[in-house]
């Protein structure tokens, strides 16, 4: 049956257009991939290869010099490079964990209960997807200074808990959970909190991974913005910026940092891709 549908669909296609579309995909795929391939190769190029004219895309004699140099360079700076790595990991992990927990807790009643104010609340959440955090950056700076959070991890981590996109996606995903399941748990005498924790949360695992990817997009690349001043609290992205500012002499080291930065989110995405796509299927905006 499935094959029949497939075949019927194929009837409509001309192979000329097929080839054109695959070419299109190939050309733009290359456009997306080449810069990343280039930087990965640069990270393994010895010094003389980095500065040949004309520049080459692929490395010939790969070395790990750039990575060892990186740790050498960073040992002489104020804080060791491992500290930047720790900060980035810590901010991402803490922000993501808190966000997944709080956003799921809020998404459950929004998706499944018709309490007073649920429509207003959800409308406000959707509206808040319609402007970027730049709009609130200045008042947030004032709020942080009133709270005394300037120059601390929590200035970056705590606001991330209440990022609207995660709640939105989680709520849309939770709507698919059959009500009968929740009713059955209720009849068995489970409290709302237990239903949330033991029935709903395990069912929305794909959405956790999606929120993880989104938070990673936001927090992994953060440089601490205007909230963090102390060198020992700065992130890897900030360190990378400093190294790249160092100019040509640091080109190889800069590429090495970029590779370290890229690896974690890309590996995470590869491992969670099918779950993320499953969650995104319910991302649509119904009226």
């Amino acid at each position, binding site marked *: 049956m499935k094959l029949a*549908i497939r075949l*019927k*669909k194929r009837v*409509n*296609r001309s192979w000329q257009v097929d080839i054109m579309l695959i070419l299109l*995909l190939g050309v*733009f795929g290359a*456009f*997306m*991939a080449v810069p*990343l391939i*280039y*930087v990965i190769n640069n990270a393994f190029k010895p010094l003389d290869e980095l*500065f040949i*004219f*004309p*520049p080459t895309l692929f490395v010939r004699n790969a070395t790990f010099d750039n990575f060892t140099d990186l740790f050498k360079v960073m040992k002489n700076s104020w804080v060791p490079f491992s500290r930047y790595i720790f900060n980035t990991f810590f901010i991402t992990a803490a922000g993501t964990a808190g966000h997944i927990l709080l956003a799921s*807790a*809020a998404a459950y*009643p929004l998706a499944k209960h018709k309490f*007073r104010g649920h429509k207003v609340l959800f409308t406000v959440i959707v509206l808040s*997807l*319609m*402007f*970027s955090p*730049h*709009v609130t*950056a*200045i*008042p947030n*700076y004032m*709020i942080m*200074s009133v709270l005394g959070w300037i120059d601390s991890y929590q200035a970056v981590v*705590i*606001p991330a808990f209440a990022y*609207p996109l995660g709640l939105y996606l989680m709520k849309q995903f939770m709507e698919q959970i059959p009500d009968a399941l929740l009713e059955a748990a209720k009849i068995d005498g489970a409290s*709302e*909190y237990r239903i*949330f924790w033991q029935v709903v949360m395990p069912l929305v695992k794909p959405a956790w991974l999606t929120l993880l*990817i989104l938070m*990673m*997009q936001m927090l*992994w*690349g953060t440089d601490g913005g*205007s909230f963090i001043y102390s060198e020992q609290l700065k992130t890897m*992205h900030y360190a990378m910026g400093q190294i790249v500012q160092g100019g*040509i002499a640091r*080109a190889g080291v800069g590429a090495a940092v*970029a590779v370290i*930065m*890229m690896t974690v*989110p*890309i590996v995470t*995405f590869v491992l969670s*891709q099918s779950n993320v*796509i499953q*969650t995104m*299927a319910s*991302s*649509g905006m119904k009226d």
Partner: protein
Amino acid sequence: MQKTKIAAEIMMQPKGRSAGLQGKWELFVKDMKRDRHSYVLLAPYVLLFLLFTVFPVVISIFFSFTHFNMLEPPHWIGWENYSKLLWNDDVFLIGLKNTMIFAVITGPVSYIACFVFAWLINELNSKVRAFMTLVFFAPSISGNVFFIWQIIFSGDSYGIMNGFLMKIGIIYEPILWLQNPQYMLTIIIIVQLWLSLGTSFLAFIAGLQTVDRTLYEAGAVDGIKNRWQELWFITLPSMRPQLMFGAVIQITSSLAVADVAMALAGFPSVQYGAHTVVTHLVDYGTIRFEMGYASAIATVLFILMLGSNLVVQKLLKRVGE
């Protein structure tokens, strides 16, 4: 019959209104009690959301009508910030113009690209599909490694672009790509597009996979001749919810160009060639500390983003109707 009704009305009359109010109040309390668990679950998120998203928008609008530098208390100056912004601040107008250029190009192009590539990828078999999804999504998740483009468009002959063009003999001297306002905007647009296949791209891929297969079969029976008709009459209408979600994400990010511009063209850029509303905001808010004026810029940005999103949502609702 008539009598009892009148009697009932008379009995109700003395405390009719207060009874109604009281009834409403009781209902309210009852509802609150019934849903108390919902409110408890919502509370932590909602409190933080109010504190870091809703409240900031409100105070930003308030401060936009004041003069405020964080040292002296704010004082009310009415529309002065706005009139200065729109009539006396040439740099803001340059920023606004660049923002519009970025938005008008990167917004629609990235939106269409997200859809077209998702659509093409969806035709492939599942292993290739997973790989191509990664290829297209990788730049946007790679943690701001867009500085690579700084090396590609580096102004000396070691930059890939200069090296390549000199090698094939199109130019004889390296071009200062990122210092020349003539090229700056184009390069930032290219990099912005490179980064733009993010959340909406994934939403579209997912949406395409959920389109009901039997619709295509039915369509073929109903006389759909080729893939373009299939796309227009079946795929697009079935994906409307995802298309609307994607539009919000792409519009918002296309109006918020700043990080890429600041990283590549410098801040401030030569002749303000890559200045945008957001970099103007950064300038006044985090360097000059003119918070009142910066709040006015933020409010303009807020209206710009919300306005264009709401208009586009209205338009998209009509697709396929």
